C-alpha cells in the first residue's frame, strides 16, 4: 500500500521549497478535479512506496475559498496517511491557527517547524519539547532552505503514519462553549467515529453550511443543535463562527506564552522593515516599481530576450538549409521538401524560438514572486487598480501578461472574488504580450521608420482599453457588486532558493510548450497547407491557394479598418492561431512560390499594402482582437465555462474591430 504524505501550511511558509527537496524529478502538476486550483505531487526521494502531495497554501479550513475547500475535501475524503503541517516558526501565532484545525481531523499530524534559522537569528527561543507536549503531536525543527532536519522529519512522519495514531483535538473551548459543542456531538448519529464526530460537531456549531448539507440529519435534530448553538451565542454575545476563531487564537496565545521566549524588542527595525522603508516609501515606491518593471522588460524582452530569439532563428535557419540540401541530394519531391522545411521545421521553430525569452521572463517573475516583492507591488498599486474595479492582485496577471497571456491568465487564480477574476481574465489579453511585439516592430519599421513612438504606443492603447473596459464593464450586471475583500499578507523579504526559482520557471515553460506549443505547431502546418494548395489539392503559388480564397471571402469585413485586402485579412486570421504567425504569414506572402521573402521584400510588400493609417489600425486590431488560441484555451480553463469564454473573446474582438475602424477613419482625415 502506498503511504501518502500531505503537505499543508500557510502561503509563504516554505512549503514549495520543502516539496522540491522531498521529491525527485518525477513531480506531476495538474488541476484538482473540476476546479482550477493546481495539484502537485511526486514520489518521496528514496522511498518508492511513498507519495508526497503538495496542497494549496491556506490560512484556514473555512468553506469560503476554493483552495481551502479543495484542501479540506482532500483531507477528509481521500484520507492521506499523515499530514506534514509546515509552519513558519518566526510567525507561530498565525501559523498554528491552521494547526488547531488540522489536529481535529482523523489524520496523524507532524508539525514541521520551518525557518528555525530565522528564529535563531532573531534571538528568540522555542521550547520544542514543551510545544510538542501542549499540542500533543510530534514537532520537528527544520530549515527547508538548506535541508536541515528533513531526514528526521521524514523518519518521524513515516513512523507516525505507520502507528496510525490520530491526535486529540485541542482543548480550545471555554466551559460554556464546550457544553454546546459536546451537546451537538452527542446528537450526532453513532455511525461516525469519535474523532470525526468531534470535527463535525465543531463545523455544525460554527454554521459550516457545506458540512451541514453533507451529513443529512433530520430537521428535528438540527433544531436541537441550533438551540445549543444559540445558547452559547447569547451567553457570549457573539456569533458562533467568531466564537470558534476567538477560541483558537486564545488557546494559541496562552500556549505560546509558555513555549516561546522572545528577545526583548528594542524598537529596532528588522531587515525586512528597513527594505520596506525604502521600497514602499511614499516618494520612492513608484520610481522603484517602474524601474523594476523596466529592468525586467529591458532584459527579458529587449536585450537578452531578443538576442536569444535571433539566436534561435539562426539555428533553425541553418538547420533548414542543411535539411533542404540533404533532401535535394536524396531526390525528395518538392512538396515534401516544402512540408518539412516550411511546415514542420517552421512550426517547431515558431514554438521553440519563443522558449528562451519566456524562460528569462519567468526567472525574473518567479524571483519577484518568491522574494516577496509582488505583494508590495499589489500594496502600492491597489488604489490605482480599484479606480476601474479591479484589485491590486489584478496587477500580477497583467504584468505576467506582458510576457505571455497564457500564464498571465493562469495567474488570476490568486484573485478570490469571482467577478474580479473574470474581469481580469477578460482584460489581461489587452496588454501587449511578447508574441505581439514582432508584429508591432515589423509594422513600425516598415511604415513608420522615423516615428519612434509608434511601437511603444501599443502599451498605451492596451492600458487605456483595460481602464476604459474596467470602468464600463464594472457597471454592467455580470460584474457589478462589491469589490473584492482585500486582506493580504506582506511576507518578510527573503532570498529565494535557486532551485525553487528554476523549478517554478520550468513548470511555467513546460505548460507553455504543452498548451501553446501544440497549437502553434498545428497552426503553422495548417497555414503551410492552406497557402500551398488550391481546393483541388494541386501545389500552387499562394495567390492562387485556398488561403487566398478565404482571405478574399473575409476581406470586405475589414474595409472600415482600411485593410480590406485578402492578405491582411488572412494574416489577421492567422493571428488567432498565434500572434507572431502574422509576421511569418506576411513573410511568406512577400516571397515567391511559398518561400519566405527577404526582409527588404517584406518591407516593400507592407508599404504597398498599407497606408500609415491602415497599418496603425491593423496594429490596434492585432493588439486587442481575440488572443491566440492557446490563450483562449487558458481563458476557457480559468473561466470554467464556454459561455464566459465566448463572451470574453467576443468582447475583445468587438472592441478591436470598433477601435481599429475609428483609428483608420480619424487617421485618414489627419493624413
Amino acid at each position: 500500500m502506498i503511504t501518502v504524505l500531505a503537505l499543508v501550511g500557510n502561503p509563504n511558509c516554505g512549503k514549495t521549497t520543502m516539496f522540491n527537496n522531498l521529491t525527485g524529478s518525477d513531480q506531476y502538476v495538474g488541476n484538482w478535479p473540476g476546479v482550477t486550483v493546481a495539484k502537485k505531487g511526486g514520489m518521496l526521494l528514496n522511498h518508492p512506496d511513498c507519495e508526497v502531495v503538495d496542497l494549496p497554501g491556506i490560512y484556514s479550513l473555512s468553506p469560503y475559498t476554493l483552495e481551502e475547500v479543495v484542501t479540506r475535501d482532500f483531507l477528509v475524503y481521500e484520507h492521506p496517511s499523515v499530514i506534514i503541517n509546515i509552519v513558519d516558526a518566526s510567525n507561530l501565532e498565525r501559523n498554528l491557527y491552521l494547526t488547531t484545525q488540522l489536529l481535529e481531523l482523523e489524520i496523524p499530524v507532524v508539525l514541521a517547524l520551518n525557518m528555525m534559522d530565522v528564529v535563531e537569528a532573531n534571538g528568540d527561543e522555542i521550547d520544542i519539547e514543551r510545544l510538542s507536549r501542549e499540542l500533543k503531536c510530534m514537532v520537528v525543527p527544520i530549515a527547508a532552505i538548506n535541508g536541515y532536519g528533513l531526514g528526521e522529519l521524514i523518519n518521524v512522519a513515516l513512523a507516525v503514519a505507520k502507528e496510525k495514531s490520530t491526535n486529540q483535538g485541542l482543548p480550545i473551548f471555554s466551559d460554556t462553549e464546550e457544553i454546546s459543542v459536546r451537546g451537538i456531538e452527542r446528537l450526532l448519529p453513532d455511525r461516525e467515529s469519535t474523532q470525526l464526530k468531534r470535527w463535525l460537531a465543531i463545523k455544525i456549531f460554527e454554521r459550516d453550511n457545506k458540512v451541514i448539507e453533507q451529513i443529512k440529519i433530520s430537521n428535528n435534530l438540527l433544531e436541537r443543535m441550533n438551540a445549543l448553538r444559540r445558547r452559547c451565542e447569547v451567553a457570549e454575545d457573539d456569533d458562533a463562527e467568531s466564537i470558534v476563531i476567538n477560541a483558537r487564537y486564545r488557546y494559541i496565545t496562552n500556549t505560546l506564552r509558555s513555549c516561546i521566549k522572545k528577545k526583548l524588542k528594542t524598537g529596532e527595525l528588522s531587515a525586512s522593515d528597513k527594505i520596506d522603508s525604502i521600497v514602499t516609501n511614499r516618494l520612492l515606491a513608484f520610481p522603484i516599481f517602474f524601474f523594476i518593471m523596466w529592468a525586467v522588460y529591458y532584459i527579458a524582452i529587449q536585450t537578452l530576450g531578443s538576442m536569444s530569439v535571433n539566436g534561435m532563428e539562426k539555428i533553425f535557419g541553418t538547420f533548414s538549409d542543411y535539411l533542404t540540401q540533404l533532401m535535394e541530394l536524396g531526390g525528395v519531391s518538392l512538396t515534401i521538401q516544402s512540408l518539412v522545411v516550411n511546415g514542420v521545421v517552421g512550426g517547431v521553430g515558431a514554438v521553440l524560438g519563443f522558449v528562451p525569452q519566456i524562460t528569462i521572463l519567468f526567472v525574473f517573475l518567479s524571483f519577484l514572486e518568491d522574494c516577496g516583492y509582488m505583494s508590495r507591488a499589489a500594496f502600492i498599486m491597489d488604489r490605482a487598480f480599484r479606480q476601474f474595479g479591479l484589485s491590486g492582485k489584478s496587477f500580477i496577471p497583467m504584468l505576467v501578461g506582458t510576457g505571455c497571456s497564457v500564464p498571465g491568465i493562469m495567474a488570476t487564480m490568486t484573485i478570490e472574488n469571482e467577478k474580479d477574476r473574470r474581469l481580469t481574465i477578460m482584460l489581461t489579453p489587452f496588454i501587449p504580450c511578447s508574441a505581439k511585439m514582432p508584429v508591432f516592430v515589423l509594422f513600425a519599421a516598415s511604415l513608420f521608420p522615423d516615428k519612434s513612438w509608434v511601437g511603444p504606443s501599443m502599451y498605451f492603447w492596451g492600458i487605456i482599453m483595460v481602464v476604459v473596459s474596467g470602468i464600463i464593464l464594472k457597471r454592467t450586471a455580470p460584474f457589478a457588486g462589491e469589490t473584492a475583500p482585500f486582506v493580504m499578507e506582506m511576507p518578510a523579504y527573503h532570498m529565494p532558493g535557486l532551485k525553487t526559482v528554476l523549478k517554478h520557471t520550468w513548470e511555467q515553460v513546460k505548460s507553455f510548450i504543452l498548451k501553446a506549443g501544440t497549437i502553434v505547431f498545428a497552426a503553422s502546418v495548417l497555414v503551410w497547407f492552406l497557402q500551398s494548395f488550391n481546393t483541388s489539392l494541386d501545389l500552387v503559388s499562394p495567390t492562387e491557394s485556398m488561403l487566398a480564397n478565404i482571405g478574399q471571402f473575409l476581406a470586405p469585413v475589414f474595409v472600415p479598418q482600411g485593410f480590406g485586402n485578402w492578405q491582411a485579412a488572412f494574416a489577421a486570421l492567422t493571428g488567432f492561431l498565434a500572434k507572431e504567425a502574422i509576421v511569418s504569414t506576411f513573410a511568406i506572402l512577400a516571397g515567391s512560390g511559398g518561400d519566405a521573402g527577404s526582409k527588404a521584400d517584406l518591407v516593400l510588400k507592407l508599404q504597398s499594402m498599407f497606408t500609415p493609417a491602415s497599418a496603425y489600425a491593423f496594429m490596434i486590431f492585432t493588439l486587442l482582437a481575440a488572443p491566440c488560441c492557446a490563450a483562449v484555451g487558458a481563458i476557457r480553463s480559468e473561466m470554467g465555462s464556454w459561455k464566459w469564454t465566448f463572451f470574453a473573446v467576443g468582447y475583445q474582438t468587438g472592441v478591436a474591430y470598433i477601435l481599429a475602424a475609428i483609428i483608420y477613419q480619424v487617421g485618414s482625415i489627419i493624413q
Partner: protein
Amino acid sequence: MRTLREIAVGQTVTVVKIEVTGAMKRRIMDMGITKGTDIFVRKIAPLGDPIELKVRDYELFLRKEDAEKILVE
C-alpha cells in the same frame, strides 16, 4: 471608540468589534484580527490606501473601506 481607519500611523490599538459579515469577516478573523488583538498601524500606501498593519507579529494590509468596519480603542 474609533474605527481602524481613523488611527494615525505609528499607533497601537486594540480590536473591540468587527462589523463585517460573511466571508470577509471570516477572512479578517482567520488572519488573526480578533477581539482583543493589538494592531500596530505601520504605514499607508503611497496613494493613500490600503493600510499596512502589524498583527500577531506579522504584517498584512487591508483597504480603508474594510478598516472602517473594525472598531478599536
